[in-house]
Structure formats: structure tokens, C-alpha cells
């Protein structure tokens, strides 16, 4: 039993990071209808940026973190302006492939600057585990979870009450109507990419503090798909819950497969098998908007 409890706790922590990355994905999808295959690479770029600032330039961690966020804003602006804006109104496949191309470019840039070796962040939080309900949990995990929750709360409030947030929701709902009410659609698109980049960077920095980073972090971007499909592609709450559920499910499935069937590495596919099942039963997820078509 304790084995599974430990798996669930680990799953919640990993799921917290999935939630953050999924949050970025959903913000982009909601406002611009772009399916971003480069989400994992945005996480990677943020993680490496913060690493470079703290270790190579010896900037205190907290300042490095904020500079990374600023850099992410610029990155988001650059991506939206140079890559995505020329493709507004193109077919699905073109937009998907342009983000795939972007993920290749970002991955290659990171490898050119920092190589493929694993990099370890300096110790920021104490390593002494805290005991919760009889289970030892590292402080960095708790920090990760808390930070994810705080960010999610901030964005929920932002979308609910702030002018910009409401404008973004209006754009997501109906672009033409939003534009005729005087909302600058292009600014909203740029804004959503900035937010997504910032959120992803936060995820990257947390991940770096947990495991260290290498150029394979980008694979995390693929795990976003089960999370967002489960939650519904355009729901923030769905992204948060979906990430947590997928994190727990894949850890438990992996543990169960290891213990009962003796299968290793099941973690990589468990989430995708769940994904296929969700697509078959409930393609618009838990909280997604149903598209209704009539002939």
C-alpha cells in the first residue's frame, strides 16, 4: 500500500509540472487555435536560460529566475511575430508543422550552446526531506507543487477579472466579434504566446531544480497531449486537473506494470494509452467545449 501511496505522491509532483506545461499549451490554443508541438522545447529553453544565468554568470538564483521570465516574454513575442503570424488562417497541418519545425530549431540551439550533457542546478532549497503523512517528500517537490498551484490561481484570477484576461477570453470565444469590439487580436495573440512561454519557463526551472536538465526535456512536451485531451483542449481548469491526473495515472500504471507484469518503461506509453481511451469515449475531455455540427 505504501508503495502505491509513494507512487501517487510522486505522480502528483510530476503532474504539477505537466499541469504547468499544459497551462501554457491551453492558453495558446484557447486564444489562437494553434496546437503547439514546441511546448516542451519552451520548457527546455527556460530551464537552460536560468541554468546559464546562475551557473555560468553567477547571478543569484532569484534574480536569474526573474531575468529568465523576462527573456521568455521576448522569446514569446519573437515566436509569435516571426513564425506564427504569417500562418494565420492556414490549414491545421501547416500550423502543426511550423511548431514542429520550431521545436527542432530550439532544440538544436540549446544543443549548440550547452551540449547534450546533463546539467545540475545549484542547490537552492534544503535537501532534508519533510515527512508528510508518514512519507518523506523533498522540499523541492513541495515547492514545485505550491508554485504550480499559485500560478494556476493567478491565471484563473487574471482570466476572470482583469481587462486583458477578459479580452483574451473574448478572442477565444469569437475572434470577429472581439475585433469589432475594439480588441487588438494581434496583441492578444502575442500576449498569449508570452504567457505560455513564461509559464513554461517556470516549469523548466522547477524541473531543473528537481532532476537537473538535459536536451531531452523537450519530450515532456508530448506528455502535454494526454493531459490537455483529458481536461479538454480549451479549459484552464481542465489543464490543471488533467496534468495532475495523468501524472498520477502514469506513475501508478508504471508501478503496477512493474510489480504485476514485470514490464519496464511502461511510463512512456501509459499516458498515451489513456489518451486513446479518452479520445474514444469523450473526445472533448472533462471540461472542453463541445463542437456541435449540424447538416
Amino acid at each position, binding site marked *: 500500500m505504501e508503495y502505491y501511496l509513494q507512487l501517487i505522491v510522486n505522480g502528483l509532483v510530476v503532474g504539477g509540472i505537466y499541469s504547468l506545461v499544459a497551462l501554457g499549451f491551453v492558453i495558446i490554443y484557447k486564444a489562437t487555435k494553434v*496546437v503547439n508541438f514546441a511546448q516542451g522545447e519552451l520548457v527546455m529553453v527556460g530551464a537552460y536560460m536560468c541554468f546559464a544565468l546562475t551557473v555560468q554568470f553567477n547571478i543569484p538564483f532569484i534574480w536569474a529566475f526573474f531575468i529568465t521570465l523576462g527573456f521568455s516574454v521576448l522569446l514569446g513575442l519573437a515566436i509569435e511575430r516571426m*513564425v506564427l503570424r*504569417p*500562418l494565420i488562417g*492556414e490549414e*491545421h*497541418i*501547416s500550423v*502543426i*508543422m*511550423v511548431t*514542429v*519545425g*520550431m*521545436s*527542432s*530549431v530550439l*532544440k*538544436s*540551439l540549446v*544543443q*549548440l550552446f550547452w551540449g547534450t550533457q546533463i546539467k545540475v542546478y545549484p542547490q537552492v532549497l534544503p535537501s532534508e526531506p519533510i515527512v508528510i503523512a508518514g512519507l518523506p517528500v523533498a522540499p523541492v517537490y513541495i515547492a514545485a507543487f505550491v508554485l504550480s498551484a499559485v500560478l494556476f490561481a493567478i491565471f484563473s484570477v487574471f482570466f476572470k477579472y482583469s481587462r486583458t484576461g477578459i479580452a483574451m477570453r473574448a478572442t477565444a470565444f469569437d475572434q470577429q466579434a472581439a475585433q469589432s469590439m475594439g480588441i487588438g487580436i494581434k496583441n492578444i495573440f502575442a500576449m498569449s504566446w508570452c504567457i505560455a512561454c513564461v509559464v513554461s519557463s517556470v516549469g523548466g526551472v522547477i524541473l531543473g531544480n528537481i532532476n537537473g536538465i538535459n536536451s531531452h526535456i523537450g519530450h515532456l512536451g*508530448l506528455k502535454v*497531449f*494526454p493531459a490537455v*485531451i483529458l481536461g479538454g*483542449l480549451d479549459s484552464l481548469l481542465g489543464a490543471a486537473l488533467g496534468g495532475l491526473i495523468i501524472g498520477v495515472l502514469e506513475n501508478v500504471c508504471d508501478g503496477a506494470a512493474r510489480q504485476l507484469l514485470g*514490464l*519496464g*518503461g*511502461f511510463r*512512456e*506509453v501509459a499516458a*498515451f*494509452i489513456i*489518451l*486513446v481511451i479518452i*479520445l*474514444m469515449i469523450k*473526445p472533448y475531455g472533462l471540461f472542453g467545449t463541445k463542437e456541435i*455540427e449540424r*447538416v
Partner: protein
Amino acid sequence: MQGKCGLFFTSYCGEARIFQSGFQKLMVVLLIAALCVAPLVLDVFTTSVMNLIFISVIGAVSLNLLTGVCGQISLGHGAFIGVGAYAAGQCSLHGVPFPLAILTGGLITAMVGMVFGVPSLRLKGIYLAIATLAAQLVLEYVFLHGGVLTGGSNGLLLDPPQMFGFSFDTEGRMYYLLFAFTAASLLMVSNIMRSKYGRAFVSIRDFYLSAEIVGVNLFWYKLIAFGVSSFLAGVAGGLWGHYTGYISAEQFNIGLSISYLAMIIIGGLGSVIGSVFGAIFIVLLPEVLNIVANGVGAYFPDIAQHIVALREGVFGLVLILFLIFEPEGLANRWRLAKAYWKLYPFAH
């Protein structure tokens, strides 16, 4: 359809022909002749690159039938090619003759493809893309953990293909075999595209609701598109496995699926000649990069370590640039070039 100057059609059949004018036929015959002579004059390395191009052309044209013509985005094509490679490999390991092994590989892949195509009735656009992505990752896992069937992480070792007691054990011999298969696949896809099925595929791509209203059975035709496309992918996989003589799970990762998608986008969606151009482009890209890296190696001694990263970056950059500046791909450039020379020197 845009006819050439002085070329008049008196029947619909004439308009639907693949090679419409005598000049075109002459050019095709000359091209085939040139390709037949090529391995006799080229060195082994160039021949091996041409062989890879042939295999990629089969894979690209099959994906183009599904994605470019029928509009069903597939991110799992690399895995389907893998299924074909493993199935054909197992067949020839069990003593099935080579042509039959390739055929069986293709048929098994067609069945697998159709199973993963079943969700395509309910799922459209990005949902289908994500479902095929899941198919890719699940199949990758099966390749790696398939036990005896796939050889696990050790992979499968294959002998060179044999037909009627003749062994295709050199690059030059393999060249003719692959050339024949490629020509047959291109002909097959061209003919499917101008048949009833091809027109149904195009109508589904352009607007599925009106396709259904004019009597196209969406489920059936989408399933056929998945089946035919996967069959050819399986053939490409079987040939690839026999050509390299070694099948391992890493070959058929998500990167392979992406590079096939890149081929048809760079070549031109929904165009047979575009698939050929795209395959040539993507296969030659790393080779050209290697040559450039060797050329400038004297000035940048570090470049050898970075070549893998550079290759990926250039690949992504080319993909982005094509999507932004030439979304219709090389096939469109080819059309423009032909139009230019047709009117030369009176172009206005």
C-alpha cells in the same frame, strides 16, 4: 485542368491521362533510361544515397496519399513503416520468399493502419493528429518490448533479399530492385488519384460534409485511405529493413514520422511529383550539410561535434521557411518553372 499550348482534348479520358503529350512520354522514357544507367557510372556512395531516396519516395508518396490527398493528418507514419519492416523481416527470417515477404509486410501494415484509422471517423484535424501521435508512441513501445517478434532492443538481422536465386547483395543490385518498387508505387498512387477513390479522397479533404452529402461513404473511404497508405508504408519499411540488413526500434521513432511529414510539405501536399522532390530534398539535406561542414571544417574546428545539432536546426529552419514562403512546396516551383519555359521568350 490546364492544357499545354496546342494540346486539345477530345475526351475526358485524354484529360485524365498521366502522361498527356508525346514530349512528356519521351522525357519520362529518357529519365528512366538515365536512371537505369546511373549506377553503372556513379560511385558506391552516391548509389547508396539514391537507394535511400528511393525508399523515402515510397514512404513520402504513401503519406501524401493519406495527408495530402485525403486530408487525414498522420503523425504515426514512421511507426507504420516500422511495422512493415518488422513484418517483412519476420517473414523472410521464416523462409518466405522475398517478394511475398514484402507483400505480407505491406498487408499486415495495412491492417494495423486501418485499426488506427478507425478513430478517424470521429476525430478530425488536430484530434486525429494527436491520436496518430499516440499510435506512434504505443507502436514504438511495442517494437522495443515485443520480445521474440521484434527482437527487443537487439533488433533483427536480415540477409540481403534473394529472388529466383539471384542475390541483391550490392548497392548497385539493390538499386534496380528499389527503382522497380519505387516506379510501381508512383504509378499506383498516380492511378489511385485519378480514379473514383482519388476523387472521393479529395472531396473528403476539401469538405467532409459535402462529400458525405454527394454520397461518399466517409468511414469506408477514410479507412481505404489509411489502408492503402499504410500498405505502401509497409512496403517501404520492408524494403528499408532488407536494404540495411538490420532493423532496430530507434529507426522508427517520432523523428522519422516528422521527417516524412516534412517531405510532403516541402515537396507539395497532394502531389505525386512533389513527394518525389520532397524525399530527394530531405535525404540530400544532411549529405549537403556534411559536405559544407567538411568544407568549412578548417575555419571552425568545432563543427564536427555540432553537426548533429546543426542538422536538426537546419531541418527545422527549412521547414519553417517553406511553410511561410512556399506553402505549396517544390511542386509549385516546378510548375512555375515549366510555365516560364513554355512561354519563353515571350513571358510577360
